[in-house]
């Protein structure tokens, strides 16, 4: 058996493409994991592969034959689909549920015979649920329900089982039970395509992994090659950390965990052994990009100011810009911009008086001339030890306006350490652009 998808694209409505040019291939006994964020197109891809929806472009082949050339029943003899868990309206018994897997073999007037019941018994025995066959499907545990659906796939005698988030809602032991059964069945030649939110399961069970980001297959290959910190950070928009285990002198990735923002005090730069100082010392290392986050008003600018001052005291070259707020009483009425090389400061933006009262996120009116001044400063920056950009917002990342020069100099990497202030809500977007960056929350 060989399943192949070539350049699949699909959109539920013509203007909105959900899947972009996705290709994959699957051999007998292989387990392919599809990982990606909610709404990334995983379920749609499974529906496409199962032939439930027709791709706009591209094709699916089974042993070289077009999936579309199969009838509904013929197709179901090759490909089974286990949808996301849902409770049927009627309380069928476990046996009756599994029996429905025989439908493609029976024809539209067909009714199951003795042989079909024997096949069902066999399938239930394989997943270890034979004793439960008379119980109501609606009343057994979620893990058992999932196993019943796998048994249905076995009774269907298909060669590929597509499973949509089989371990969602299951407790740890049930997850393990389901995944081990999948593993055992794959050794007997049944292939699986599994959409999942569990990269750890993919590390443990998958032969191949496909990462889906916004409908694009951003990565496809062996789990240990695909499930790396930077790729997962880009896909999920969070910092991730892969934890390795040493086995016979080799390091094997065992788990992927989200990484919380590193809490760093600006003063730690005084301490020669601190995490922050070490980044400057290891000069042969790659340039490091720190994303400084926190809620607005948490003190990000203060942190940067402090860091810049200490760095200068230690004789490092500091470049970039700060954006200190300009206050009238308690209220922030303007945003300044300060050239860190010279200390010169100008007023970059002011608040529109008419709407500041009602808006929690005020609308700033930018001064085009000062913005150009700030961009010119950034564009002129050459080599530096510490580059500080305070701050990049939706303007730069979503609309391509504002401090556009900042994005370029960050990409040019002519610094040892760059600190870029970014609000938390933008992190997923920013991490997609710089997946190797380290998220830092100033210990203010």
């Amino acid at each position: 058996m060989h399943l192949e998808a070539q350049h699949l694209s699909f959109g539920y409505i013509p203007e909105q493409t959900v899947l972009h040019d996705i290709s994959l291939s699957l051999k007998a006994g292989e387990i392919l994991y599809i990982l990606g964020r909610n709404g990334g197109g995983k379920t749609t891809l499974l529906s496409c592969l199962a032939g439930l929806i027709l791709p706009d472009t591209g094709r699916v082949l089974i042993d070289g034959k077009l999936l579309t050339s199969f009838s509904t029943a013929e197709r179901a003899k090759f490909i089974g689909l286990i949808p996301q868990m849902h409770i049927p309206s009627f309380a069928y018994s476990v046996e009756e549920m599994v029996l429905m897997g025989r439908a493609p073999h029976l024809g539209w007037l067909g009714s199951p015979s003795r042989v079909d019941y024997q096949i069902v018994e066999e399938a239930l025995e394989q997943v270890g649920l034979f004793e439960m066959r008379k119980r109501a499907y609606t009343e057994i545990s979620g893990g058992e329900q999932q196993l019943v659906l796998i048994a249905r796939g076995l009774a269907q005698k298909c060669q590929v089982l597509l499973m949509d988030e089989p371990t969602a809602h299951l407790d740890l032991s049930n997850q393990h039970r389901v995944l081990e059964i999948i593993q055992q069945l794959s050794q007997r030649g049944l292939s699986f395509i599994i959409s999942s939110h569990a990269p750890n399961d993919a590390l443990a069970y998958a032969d191949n992994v496909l990462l889906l980001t916004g409908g694009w297959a951003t990565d496809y290959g062996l789990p240990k090659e695909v499930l790396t910190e930077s790729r997962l950070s880009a896909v999920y928009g969070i910092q991730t950390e892969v934890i390795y285990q040493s086995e016979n002198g080799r390091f094997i990735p065992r788990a992927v965990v989200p990484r919380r923002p590193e809490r760093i005090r600006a003063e730690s730069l005084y301490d020669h052994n601190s995490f922050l100082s070490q980044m400057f010392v290891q000069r042969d290392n790659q340039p490091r990009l720190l994303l400084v986050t926190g809620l607005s008003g948490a003190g990000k600018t203060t942190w940067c100011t402090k860091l810049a001052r200490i760095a200068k005291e230690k004789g490092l070259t500091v470049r970039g810009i700060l954006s200190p707020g300009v206050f009238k009483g308690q209220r922030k009425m303007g945003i300044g911009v300060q050239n860190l090389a010279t200390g010169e400061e100008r007023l970059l933006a002011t608040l529109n008086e008419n709407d500041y009262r009602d808006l929690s996120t005020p609308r700033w009116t930018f001064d085009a001339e000062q913005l150009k001044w700030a961009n010119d400063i950034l564009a002129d920056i050459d080599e530096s030890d510490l580059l500080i950009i305070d701050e990049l917002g939706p303007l730069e990342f979503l609309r391509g306006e504002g401090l556009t020069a900042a994005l370029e100099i960050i990409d040019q990497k002519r610094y040892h350490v760059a600190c870029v202030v970014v609000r938390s809500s933008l992190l997923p977007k920013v991490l997609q652009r710089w997946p190797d960056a380290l998220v830092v929350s100033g210990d203010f």
Partner: protein
Amino acid sequence: MKSSRFAKLTEGRSSQTIRIIFIILFTVPVILFVLSLTLGRYPIGPIDVLRVLLSPFFPNLANDIPDVAQQLILRVRLPRILAALLIGASFGGTGTAFQAIFKNPLVDSNILGVTSGAGFGAALALLFMADSWIVQISAFVFGLAAVSLAFFGSRLYKTSPLLVLTLMGILVGSLFSSLTSLLKYVADPLDTLPAITFWLLGSLTSVTWSRLASLAVITLIGVVFLLLIRWQLNVLSLGDNEARALGVSPSRMKLLIIIFTTLMTAAAVAVSGVIGWVGLVIPHAGRLLVGPDHKNLLPAAMLLGASFMMLIDDVARAMLPGEIPLGVLTGLIGVPILIVLLRKNRTGW
């Protein structure tokens, strides 16, 4: 104590038990059929009834029974009771099929507006004081028209076809109900209005052999069709996507089922007038007896429906000197039964 009872309910019944239940389900309508023939102003004993029924095959069997009694059984009671039996089986079967394809245990074959359409058709014919066979045809045609309108109306929308179809059925049903009300408003209060009102309340009084013929043919064809595809109802009740993944083409199957059940329901309503609740209640009773597997449930619901309608018709005929409208009785008896069933049926539906 409580948990053991619960466990009993969640365990499916053994095939042995189901066989016994089916023997009972087959016997009850036969007994009821004979007993129903004995009931009425002119009492005739069950033995005599059997003799009269068998007299066409054994000519001398019923010679001593008065001609009036023979005519009463063969010309008046027999077609009426056969109609009750067929209509009951039809409602039980179509209700079960619709609950499966709509994935909803709270619908029956009226959900697409067939009864409202038929009611309007009958009211229209009665307004022009048409013959009873024209009333029957008009009811049948408008019943089909209502469902077609709902079905093709739902095709205008691409999303969630099941929900739109249900909504369209409800809309078309309300539309025809309003039209019927309009006809009642303009009807002659001394003449056509009572006729329309009585028709809408449901009755089997005027059933004759000639009116029974079309009902019998359509119902029997429909029953055979439903029995043939009954196991596929299990697969269809899981939803379109899952059915397709299991190799069953849901749109084709559902269209066929809607066509057959609508023909059956329209034929039944055209003869009996509006009789509610049977198609809704009977499948629940069936599930309680034989479980949700449509392989058993569909025949069980048909047999139960047949028994239930004969019983209801007996009550309508025998309880009061005059006749109680059937639609009133099915509601009066059906609703309490449904409430009890929903309370008892703990294994989901």
